[in-house]
């Protein structure tokens, strides 16, 4: 295949492998399989994303993983024959915790508890079991975990990457400035009055 002069571009190869895999795949594995480096892979993913625009399938991606899914506009059509396992109601605590993980992840449980002001052990476990949240080893403390949104969660929200969340950059920068003690939002301006 490698010798074939009419070799298909890397974006087509990515598409074929992800189609076959039928579940999230790590970018690392994908680049090893295709024998390309990370930046070529990312470039291939961008090309594929463009090629898929207006089509029936789309790309969903986190920093680490990538998968193919149906176009979000066609959710109603697909729901006619597929059952959706994740849509069980989140509840207030679940929604709050999920939002923290989405906008602040990867984040430790201690930090989640600190933001919520309560113990999040069981609600996090519930989200993990449902596959909405994933945990990874904490690079700065191997005895603990960091929590991050799963690809399935992004797919369930109908967004293809985390930056597509409503006001993603704004929320993050607001929270950063709260942490630094700088308050550029209305909150700060008005409270001085």
């Amino acid at each position: 295949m490698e010798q074939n002069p009419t070799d298909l571009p890397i974006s087509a190869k990515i598409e074929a492998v992800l189609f076959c895999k039928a579940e999230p795949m790590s970018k690392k594995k994908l680049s090893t399989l295709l024998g390309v480096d990370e930046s070529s892979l990312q470039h291939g993913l961008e090309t594929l994303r463009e090629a898929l625009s207006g089509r029936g399938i789309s790309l969903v991606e986190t920093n680490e993983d990538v998968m193919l899914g149906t176009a979000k506009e066609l959710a109603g059509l697909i729901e006619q024959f597929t059952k959706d396992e994740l849509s069980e109601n989140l509840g207030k605590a679940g929604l709050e915790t999920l939002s923290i993980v989405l906008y602040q992840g990867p984040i430790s449980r201690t930090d989640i508890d600190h933001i919520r002001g309560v113990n999040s052990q069981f609600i996090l476990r519930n989200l993990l079991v449902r596959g909405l949240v994933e945990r990874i080893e904490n690079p700065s403390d191997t005895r603990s975990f960091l929590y991050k949104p799963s690809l399935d969660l992004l797919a369930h929200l109908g967004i293809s990457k985390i930056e597509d969340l409503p006001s993603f950059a704004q929320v993050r920068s607001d929270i950063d400035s709260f942490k630094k003690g700088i308050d550029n939002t209305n909150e700060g301006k008005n409270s001085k009055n």
Partner: protein
Amino acid sequence: MSFTIKTQSFEGPLDLLLDLIEKRKLFISDISLAKVTDDFIMHVKQFEHLPMGESAHFILIASTLLLIKSKSLLPELALSEEEQTDISDLETRLKIFKRIKEASIGIQNLFGKQIIFGRSQSRIISPVFAPSPEFTLEKALFLLTDLINRFPKQETLPKHVVRKVISLEEMISTLTTRITSHLKMSFKEFTKEHKGNRVNVIVSFLAMLELMKKGILEVSQETHFGEIQMETKEVGVPRY
């Protein structure tokens, strides 16, 4: 004062606090926090029956609010660096929590509305036996033992929370000493009837603060300490 709000409707002390501030259409600041302190503690009173684990988080926040309230009533009260940090930390946490709550509305609106579906797993699987050399009986037992040891335990309250909550009375008594040193008023008299109940100690303390605020005005006129106690008795302890 409304007591109709069910405890279950709040996910935690910050949720309650934010709700109290927003109900009064206030912005998050030390001033608004001082204003809602009494309301907050009235709500916490209802949680007295909750297990230590759940009420501890509320008591912890209550103690910080107490500092804020004390400072607002008695501006000359000097706070330690740690106390200052606790106060600004609470404001920061509330602001972050509020931002997250706002963002969570957007998440709720998206969740499950336009799902990107993955490929169904085909029902037919033709397995190829491919064991992994790492999987041995010893490994299986080791992993399961590890898993069993990591099973979540009920209500594990972090040590620092327990320590802080237990030292709450100490904090109040120190505060009392600091505030009353020149008033010669015994806080013990105020709280002896509520012995052992943290929330009531806070309530009494707040009441005393209010009275003292009035008392201080008298003091500045007459500088006769004995009469303050007479004055406060006439005013009476506010009924909460």
